[in-house]
């Protein structure tokens, strides 16, 4: 019996080596995609924080008056609102699902009656009326590996203590003090 490798053995070996190489390449590609996605979300959050802080510096308030005219804006952007309210220098595209890999970002004005629970989450300072926070609605949930990786990146790249988990699909990010660095 010949001791050399048969063509079949060589073929099987090549196929067996192709499997982990292909799977590894695919895994690496997914990791890179997640990294890019996380970087984009962090960039969007920083841009939102920079705009809201600039608005606050210029007007001494965090939110514009609602298009309805009788109240401050509660949620921005809010597709449920029949009246479109503009937030000067804040690009709505920064909040869109398609620009945040399925996540919905919404700027919310703190309301003591509705959001009192927020101050129990150990943010760096207590929320006062009309302070802004960013509501993050996840598409899949924090148990999903990509969304969890994006949230982890948010937590690492922004200041510690700015992110609170309320539900697998609902997170709150403290925008105060964050700026576009």
């Amino acid at each position, binding site marked *: 019996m010949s001791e*050399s490798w048969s063509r079949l053995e060589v073929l*099987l*070996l090549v196929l067996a080596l192709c499997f982990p190489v292909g799977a590894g390449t695919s895994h690496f590609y997914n990791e890179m995609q997640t990294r890019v996605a996380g970087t984009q979300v962090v960039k969007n959050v920083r841009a939102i924080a920079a705009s809201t802080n600039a608005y606050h510096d210029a007007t001494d308030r965090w939110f514009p008056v609602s298009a309805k005219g009788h109240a401050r804006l509660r949620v921005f952007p809010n597709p*449920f609102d029949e009246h479109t309210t503009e937030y000067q220098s804040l690009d709505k595209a920064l909040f869109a699902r398609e620009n945040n890999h399925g996540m919905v970002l919404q700027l919310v004005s703190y309301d003591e009656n509705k959001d009192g629970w927020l101050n129990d989450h150990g943010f760096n300072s207590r929320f006062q009326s009309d302070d802004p926070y960013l509501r993050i609605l996840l*598409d*899949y949930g924090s*148990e999903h590996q990509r969304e969890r990786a994006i949230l982890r990146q948010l937590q690492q790249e922004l200041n510690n203590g700015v992110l609170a*988990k*309320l539900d697998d*699909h609902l997170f709150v990010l403290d925008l105060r003090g964050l700026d576009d660095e």
Partner: protein
Amino acid sequence: MMSDKKEMLQNIDFDNLILESEKDPDLEYPAQGEMLAKRRIAPKPMILVIWLASLLLGALITMDSIHTTERVGSRGAEVQLGVALYHLAHRVETYKDRTGNLPDYLEPQWQESGEVEYRVTNGRYHLSANAGGFVREYSQGEDPELLLFEVRQLGQQEQEKVKGKEIE
């Protein structure tokens, strides 16, 4: 004739011929190929070890990749329904903002569209979902914040469990 050939063979310097053949590019490849074919590269059990190790490694990487696309939900039914309805209502409203019309149906790629019933009556849409004995509904024009408000109440109740817990 035979004696001529004998004489020619005796005159050939075989040692020199072998040395010269090594330098000849035309002779190099066939010679190496033949040698490789006869040479044992690795013992046979080694093939099996490499083969199994490769399959195992590939399977582990693939399983890890599958996990990234797997949908996992550990929410309670009531929480799940509220957030699911909010998500879909948000999608419907966004669609309406962009096109001016309500969608005819919930697109399958919209997350949780399979769990929620959607119907349009008198130009208004209604969403309803039920799971785990809970039923939740949302109709166009209602305050969508209430869908999340319930989540917050539950979040408070379960706060002791999750307080201080960072994303793993």
